[in-house]
């Protein structure tokens, strides 16, 4: 190999190194749901019929097999300004259920929230934005039954334009909402929005 070609090889390696360092320095953010997963894109090809609602029973565990989520569920109230409270941030694998609302599987809208991350890194719902229509959300309840929901849509809302009624209003079948942070991140003001997974009950295990 001539010195000249060795020189070119070293220059190319330097370029690759620069690119790696530059690209790697850019911030990695949690997965963002694609527009195809929103309600606006229409229902999923594979839509399961709604199952009959279950009698109320408190949730104890939440699983999303598709993204390997398997977390205990704690109870949530409201903050002083009426927002949904969140689970303690120190526990990275913990979901929370709004305890004055509907229990998962019962008729109405069960509300679950969890952290996308904490100060140490990704948390329970880091991958929520990677879910797709038709994926399953399973909630193990105190009565021993597991309520199985199918994902109807994954939407992203800016904090300032959060649609309370669409997310929190009681449905007339058994539905679920799983909420976490997302929609872009700014060092100054944190996450710019919420990712919300909408689902309805399709069966019981």
């Amino acid at each position, binding site marked *: 190999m001539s*010195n000249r070609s*060795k*020189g070119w*090889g*070293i*220059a190319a*390696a*330097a370029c*690759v*190194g*620069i*690119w*790696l*360092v*530059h*690209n*790697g*320095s*850019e*911030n*990695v*953010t*949690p997965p963002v749901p694609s527009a195809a997963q929103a309600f606006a894109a229409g229902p999923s090809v594979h839509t399961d019929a709604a199952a009959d609602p279950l009698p109320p029973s408190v949730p104890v565990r939440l699983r999303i097999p598709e993204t390997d989520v398997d977390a205990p569920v704690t109870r949530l109230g*409201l903050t002083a*300004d*009426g*927002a*949904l409270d*969140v689970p303690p*941030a120190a526990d990275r694998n913990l979901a929370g259920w*709004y305890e*004055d*609302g509907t229990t998962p599987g019962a008729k109405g809208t069960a*509300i679950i*929230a*969890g*952290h*996308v*991350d*904490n*100060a140490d*890194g*990704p*948390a329970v*719902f*880091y991958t929520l934005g990677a879910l797709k229509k038709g994926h399953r959300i399973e909630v193990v309840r105190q009565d021993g039954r597991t309520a199985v929901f199918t994902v109807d849509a994954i939407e992203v*809302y800016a*904090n300032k334009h*959060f649609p*309370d009624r669409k997310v*929190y209003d009681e449905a007339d079948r058994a539905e679920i909402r799983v*909420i*976490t*942070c997302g929609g872009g*991140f700014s*060092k100054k003001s*944190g*996450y710019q*929005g*919420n990712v919300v997974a909408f689902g309805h009950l399709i069966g019981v295990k």
Partner: protein
Amino acid sequence: MRTTARLLTGTALAVAAIGAFAAPAAYANDDSWSSNGESWSSGDENWNSGGGGHESLELSPSSASPGETVTVNTLACGKHGHGVGDANSLGAGEFQLKPSTHKEVVVGQFTVPEHVKAGSYGISVACDNGKTAKGDLWVKHRGPSGHVQTGVGGSVGPDTAQVTAGAAVLAAAAVGGVWLLRRRASGAQGH
């Protein structure tokens, strides 16, 4: 003819008699039902009210959330009357009712405590005149509003593995470059 007239009169009398008996009996029955119902729900209050029974209690709003103030008014206490309200069913204690600007109505208020479960709660008022009034308050919970604060950005940051790999490649290229330059320099000297 006489027999027919007699028969008719007899029938008429019988009907009248049955009617006369039946009507008070029916009323008496109604009375006993309602007073029965009241004595079940109010217990010994009925003794004080002298059989006056309960009057209606107006709650505004009739459906309230924790933290909300409910205004109670009733005609039961009479003009310039006073009363004591009982909201212990939902843990709001007792409250006073005083004549309002409409003199025939007494008014009082209580606040729905923060940690009351949703559901129906009986509110009663005992008036100075011995009458009582009852009504039901429906407690509902405001759902959450607004977005949730579920992240601080701890997962957001540079891809350290990629940066490390890039730095390693750069270092290797630098070492290679120095080695090549040295060789070139020594080769030139050799000539």
